[in-house]
C-alpha cells in the first residue's frame, strides 16, 4: 500500500528544472540547425542577401528623392505592416514523447511556457518594429497626412499584442472549425485595424479598431478551450521544424522531417493523367505530393510576390535583375522536389527502375521552372521597355531553367546507385 501511495505522489518539476529543460530544447534545436547554415551561406545565398540589401538601400534612397506624387504609400504600408502585425506563432519545442513523460507535470510547466511565449514574441515584435522603421521615411514623405512615428509604432505594437493573444487562444481552442475561424478573424482584424490606422483620423481609427478588437477578444474568450493543448503544440512544432528543414533542404541534404500537408481539394485531379502508366508512376506520386506540399505554397508566393514587384518595376531595366533573382530563387526552391521520397522504401521494393524518381523530379522541376519563368515575364510585356529587352529577359529565364536542369541531371547517376 505504501509503495502505491509513493508512486501516486505527483512528480515535482522545480522552476529551475523547467528552465533547464527549456534551455536544453532550444540548444538542441539550434544545435541541429546551425551546422547546416554554413552550407546555406556557401551556396551563394549570403551573397545574394548582401547584394540585395546594398542595392535595395541604394534604390530605396534614390527612390525617396523622387517619389511620384500619386504613389500608393498607404497600400504599400498596409501590405507590409498588416502581415507583420497579424502573423504570430509560438515555438514550444514540445515533442511527441512529452505527451507521455511530461503530461503528469503539466501544471508545473508554467515557467517553460512563459519562456516559450517570450522566445516566440520577441523576434516577431522586432520584425514589426523594423518594418515600420524602414517604411517610415517613405510614409512620412509620401503620405498626405502622416501620423507620428512613435504613436504609430505604439499602435502597431498594440495591434500585434492583440493578434498575439488571439494566436495563443487559438492554439487552445478545442474545435478545429473554431480554431480555423479564429485564425481567419485574426487576419481580418489585423488587416482591418492597420487599414483603419492608415486611412482614418486618429479618433475614428481608435474607435473602430477598438470596438472590433473588443468584439474579437470577447469572441475568443467565449470559445471552449483546453487548459494545455498538448497535441496542438506538438503539431505546431512539427510544422515549424518541417519548414526549417524544408528551407535548409534547398541547400543541403537533410534528414527527413515531417512536412505539413495541405488538403487543397481544388487540386485533387492534379497528376491523375499519369495514373496507370507504369513509366510515369513516380510522376503520379510526385504530382500528388507536390499538390499538397509546402513547396507549392512557396512557389505560389514567390510567383505572386515576383509579379507584384515586376508590375511595379515593369518600365525600368532594373526589372531584369529582379526577374533573374526570382527565377533563380524559384529554381533553388525546386531542389526540394528531388528530396521527396528519396529514402522511400517502396522505391526499392516496387518494380520501378531506380532512376525513375530522379527522372520524374527532373521533368517536373523543369516544367514548373519554365512555367514560372514565362509567368514572371507577363508584367514586362505591358511595360515600356523595348521588345528586344523583353525577349532577352524571357530567354535569360529559360537559360536559368535549363542550366538548373543540366546541373541536376548530373546527380542522376548518384540516384541510380
Amino acid at each position, binding site marked *: 500500500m505504501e509503495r502505491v501511495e509513493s508512486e501516486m505522489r505527483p512528480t515535482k518539476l522545480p522552476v529551475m528544472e523547467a528552465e533547464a529543460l527549456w534551455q536544453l530544447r532550444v540548444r538542441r534545436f539550434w544545435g541541429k540547425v546551425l551546422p547546416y547554415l554554413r552550407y546555406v551561406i556557401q551556396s551563394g545565398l549570403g551573397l545574394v542577401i548582401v547584394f540585395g540589401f546594398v542595392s535595395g538601400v541604394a534604390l530605396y534612397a534614390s527612390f525617396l528623392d523622387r517619389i511620384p506624387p500619386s504613389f500608393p504609400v498607404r497600400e504599400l504600408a498596409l501590405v507590409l505592416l498588416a502581415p507583420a502585425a497579424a502573423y504570430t506563432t509560438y515555438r514550444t519545442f514540445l515533442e511527441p514523447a512529452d505527451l507521455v513523460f511530461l503530461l503528469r507535470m503539466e501544471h508545473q510547466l508554467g515557467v517553460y511556457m512563459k519562456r516559450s511565449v517570450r522566445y516566440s514574441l520577441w523576434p516577431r515584435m522586432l520584425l514589426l518594429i523594423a518594418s515600420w522603421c524602414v517604411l517610415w521615411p517613405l510614409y512620412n514623405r509620401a503620405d498626405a497626412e502622416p501620423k507620428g512615428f512613435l504613436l504609430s509604432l505604439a499602435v502597431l505594437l498594440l495591434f500585434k499584442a492583440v493578434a498575439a493573444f488571439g494566436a495563443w487562444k487559438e492554439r487552445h481552442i478545442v474545435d478545429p472549425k473554431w480554431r480555423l475561424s479564429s485564425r481567419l478573424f485574426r487576419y481580418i482584424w489585423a488587416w482591418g485595424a492597420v487599414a483603419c490606422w492608415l486611412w482614418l483620423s486618429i479618433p475614428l481609427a481608435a474607435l473602430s479598431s477598438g470596438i472590433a478588437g473588443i468584439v474579437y477578444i470577447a469572441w475568443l474568450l467565449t470559445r471552449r478551450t483546453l487548459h494545455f493543448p498538448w497535441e496542438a503544440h506538438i503539431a505546431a512544432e512539427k510544422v515549424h521544424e518541417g519548414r526549417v528543414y524544408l528551407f535548409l533542404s534547398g541547400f543541403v541534404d537533410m534528414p527527413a522531417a515531417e512536412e505539413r500537408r495541405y488538403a487543397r481539394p481544388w487540386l485533387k485531379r492534379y497528376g491523375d493523367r499519369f*495514373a*496507370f502508366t*507504369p513509366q510515369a508512376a513516380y510522376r503520379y506520386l510526385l504530382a500528388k*505530393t507536390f499538390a*499538397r*506540399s509546402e513547396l507549392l505554397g512557396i512557389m505560389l508566393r514567390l510567383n505572386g510576390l515576383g509579379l507584384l514587384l515586376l508590375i511595379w518595376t515593369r518600365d525600368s531595366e532594373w526589372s531584369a535583375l529582379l526577374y533573374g533573382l526570382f527565377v533563380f530563387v524559384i529554381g533553388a526552391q525546386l531542389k526540394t522536389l528531388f528530396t521527396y521520397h528519396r529514402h522511400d*522504401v*517502396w522505391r526499392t521494393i*516496387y*518494380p520501378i527502375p531506380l532512376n525513375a524518381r530522379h527522372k520524374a523530379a527532373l521533368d517536373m522541376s523543369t516544367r514548373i521552372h519554365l512555367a514560372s519563368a514565362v509567368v514572371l515575364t507577363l508584367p514586362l510585356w505591358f511595360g515600356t521597355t523595348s521588345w528586344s529587352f523583353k525577349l532577352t529577359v524571357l530567354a535569360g529565364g529559360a537559360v536559368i531553367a535549363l542550366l538548373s536542369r543540366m546541373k541536376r541531371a548530373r546527380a542522376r547517376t548518384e540516384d541510380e546507385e
Partner: protein
Amino acid sequence: MPHMLPIGDTQVMAVDRWHSLPSSLSGIIILEVKQMEPLLQIDRLTGGYSIGRPVLHDITFNVNAGEMVGLIGLNGAGKSTTMKHILGLLEPHSGKVRLQGRALSEAPEAYRAALAYVPESPILYDALTVREHLVWTATAYGVEQTLFEKRVAELADLFQMKPHLDKAAQHLSKGMKQKTMLMCVFAVRPPLYIIDEPFLGLDPLGIRSLLQYMKGVKEEGASLLVSSHILSTIEHYCDQFVLLHHGRVMGAGTVHELQNQLAHRSGEAATQRLEDLFYAWVGGDDASGGGLTWNE
C-alpha cells in the same frame, strides 16, 4: 489438364498430352514429368545488418506456388530480417535468395514485380489519400485500370473502407492504415505476398476478412509468406511453418510435423495446440537474441 502429384518434398507435374500427338502414336500415353521449382527458395542464407554480426544463420526453406507459409518465432528471432533479405533490402553475407528461379541481381524489375510486401508498421504517404495509394501501387505494378477498379471495389467492401477511400492517409486510424497497406498488395495480385504481422491493428472483423481473402488468393495459385505471433489464428490457415529462434531454423513443416517436433523437444503431448507447444518449448529459453546495444 495438369495434375499435381505430391512426391516426397517436391511436387511433380504430370501432363497427359496423348491427345495432341500424331495418330500413329495414339494409344501410347506419354507422361512428361517435370520437377516444379519452388516459387521462393532460400538456400543457406546467412545475413543481417552488419558483416561479422549475422542475425540469420544458415537459413533454408522454400515457398511453393499456392502455399501459405507461416514464419514464426519470438521477438528478435529474425523474421523481419529474413523478409528484408527476400525483399532485397539487405545483402546476404552468404547463401542465396531466389524468386521464380532468379536472384534479385539477375532481373531486378521482374523479381520485384513478382512480390508485394506489407511491412510490420504501415508506411504510407501523408500527402496521399487511400485511393491514391492504391492507384500509385497499381501504376507501379502495371495493373490495368478496369481490373484495378473491380479489385478495389471488392477490397473496399471486404475491409469496410468504402467511406474512407478519399481520406488523407494521415487522418486514418492505425487499423485503417493497415487495411490500406493490405488493399494495396491485394490490388496488384503478385505471385508472392510477404506480409509481416498482418493482424496488427485490425479489428476482429478485419482479421476475419483478411484471412478469408488470403485463403482466396492462395486458392488462385498465389503464395504467401506471413509472419505472426498469433499462432492460434494462423495455425489453421498456413500449409507450412518455419520456426525461427535466435536466427536459426529450429523446426519446419506442416502443423502436425511441427507439433511432433515441438512435443519431442518440450516433452509435452503432441496433441496440444501449436501455440501451447511453442510456448512450452521457448518458455524457459533465454531469448536475449542478437543485435547491437548502444554501447557496442
